[in-house]
């Protein structure tokens, strides 16, 4: 029973949620006891991709600015970390610096992007990412070029992050903070303004939303979060080179937010899980398939492409959408209405969907 508006603002609006999230939290905290180093490493990757996913979700899912160039912000975070730590700086300094550099880069992209809309914006982000990739390759003095850069274990205020469990807790902690930041934004004026910008720029402006500020903030924030993911990414891989920040990575990020469920923060996590789990499934499939097919390279990319197409065709609301339907079914049983989730279609050209 709700008794005040403050109730609606609460993080957990249903009492049941506290139980579920509490259980989830306990399992996540106990993960080092439940799985081995390999499993923890995978979980860490999920966290890293989820952080970047939240970043992209805020920009593309909630503000409606589709970016095909987020690998550039991941790279900014990764390289900033590598370069600063090469100078002997602690991770506690490198991490915020990574976020800052990536965030500034995001603002740099966002400002000229104000004049661009729709596909033009997306292609501009693509072009931007290609240029960044090239700069990383050519600026050998700063980045080592194609030879790349090596990283030691992170040192967080003196504490060495030199084991999988420690790294996992670091990544998990940052993910939780990222999710909180995202949730907070979405229940505050900025989040509403972002959604307004996505759904109707004209109305948003008429209601006092400064499009330039909201879009630039969205870009900066999104980039900064992806930069944080980049800092973690660099340490997880211990070696970075321009080849790890190609357009495929940007596409992978978009995959995360689409398959996860565009328009929901949880979608970022679901999407990250999917992107990490799918290659594992392909590995298993390889053992089951006849050797002729199993030995083929490119099975993973094919699986991703196919998954993307299938999700868009049959479950456009993504994994989170499937989860929401399931939960709704459970809550409204037996008066569940299938049509609740049917999306309206727009058929005239230029209607903007």
């Amino acid at each position, binding site marked *: 029973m709700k008794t005040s508006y403050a109730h609606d603002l609460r993080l957990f609006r249903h009492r049941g949620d506290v139980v579920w999230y509490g259980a989830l939290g306990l399992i996540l905290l106990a993960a080092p006891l439940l799985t081995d180093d390999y499993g923890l490493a995978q979980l860490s990757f999920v966290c890293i991709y989820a952080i970047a996913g939240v970043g992209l979700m805020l920009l593309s899912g909630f503000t409606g600015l*589709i970016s095909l160039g987020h690998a550039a912000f991941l790279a900014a975070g990764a390289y900033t970390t590598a370069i600063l730590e090469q100078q002997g700086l602690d991770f506690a300094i490198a991490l915020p610096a990574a976020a800052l550099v990536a965030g500034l880069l995001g603002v740099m992209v966002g400002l000229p992007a104000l004049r661009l809309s729709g596909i033009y914006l997306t292609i501009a982000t693509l072009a931007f990412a290609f*240029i960044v990739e090239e700069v990383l390759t050519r600026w050998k003095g700063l980045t080592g070029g194609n030879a790349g850069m090596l990283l030691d274990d992170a040192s967080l205020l003196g504490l060495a992050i030199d084991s999988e469990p420690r790294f996992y807790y670091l990544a998990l902690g940052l993910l939780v903070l990222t999710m909180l930041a995202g949730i907070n934004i979405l229940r505050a004026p900025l989040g509403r303004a972002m959604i307004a910008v996505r759904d109707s720029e004209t109305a948003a402006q008429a209601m006092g939303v400064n499009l330039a500020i909201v879009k630039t903030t969205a870009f900066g924030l999104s980039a900064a979060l992806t930069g944080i993911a980049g800092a973690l990414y660099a340490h997880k891989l211990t070696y970075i080179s321009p080849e790890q920040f190609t357009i495929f990575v940007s596409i992978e990020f978009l995959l995360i937010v689409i398959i996860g469920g565009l328009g929901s923060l949880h979608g970022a996590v679901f999407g990250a899980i999917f992107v990490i789990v799918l290659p594992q499934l392909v590995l298993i499939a390889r053992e089951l398939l006849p050797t002729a097919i199993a030995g083929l390279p*490119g099975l*993973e990319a094919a699986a991703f*492409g196919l998954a993307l197409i299938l999700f868009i065709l049959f479950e456009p609301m993504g994994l989170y959408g499937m989860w929401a339907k399931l939960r709704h079914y459970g809550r409204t049983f037996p008066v569940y209405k299938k049509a609740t989730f049917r999306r309206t279609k727009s058929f005239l050209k230029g209607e903007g969907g």
Partner: protein
Amino acid sequence: MVEFAQQVISGVAIGCVYGLVALGFVLVYKATEVVNFAQGELMMVGAFFAFTFTTLTGLSFWIGVGAAVAAMAALGALIDRIVIRPLVGQPAFAIFMATIGIGLLARSVAGMVPGWGFETHALVTPFSDRVVGLGTLTLSQEHLSIIVATVLLVALLAAFFRFSRLGVAMQATSQNQLAAAYMGIPIKRVYMLIWALSAAVAGFAGILLAPIAFVHVNMGFIGLKAFPAAVLGGFGSIPGAIAGGLIIGVVEALAGFYLPEGFKDVAAYVVLLAVLIVRPRGLFGVSTRRRV
């Protein structure tokens, strides 16, 4: 001076390829507002088809090429029928992502086809390794054939759109879908044919490109430059697409020759960003505004 002219010619040649890929891309966009991210991959598949039908199966070059283009048309129609048509009515972004998926799938499947794989293949054409002297310039017949073929194809397409019933129907469908439907034009079928045409043009571009860039699954990256070309041209304009492609091609060639290493690879994208900053709707684009 001679080198400059040589670079320009080779730039024009590759620009023709960019322009053709962009043209196929714009054909679909004009009609359906769908942005086909996989256009570059279609070009790649077309090159592979040509390679298969000529080199692998030993057919004569011209028959092999014809078969490849026909196969591409069928592929385009198939893509429309299976993936695009069910998505009618969905937001543009969803369809765009679906084409990204198609691109990923095409590239990886191409790597898995026996005989294709991730190696580089050569497409032998009647124009390979032959040169033509023109004054002080030495032009490779490959470059020349690309330019000539492009001119011929564009002229053919222009005539097709202007004078043939199907071409006019396509134009009508592109401009006003509802009105075309009311006039009795079978919209769905026209869309499928537009996709077929677009894929065929992409395949044709791949065949033209193969002699100079070799047949390889990464050809799609070259096709990615069709985006800057299309944006330069204003995204809804067919002559603009070709013009955009030519500009990109020439700038790229000159950048590769006069500027330090690496500039050639990003020249297309730098030009794109520069143009968009000044003209957010492309060079020839028209500003469309939602009426409220």
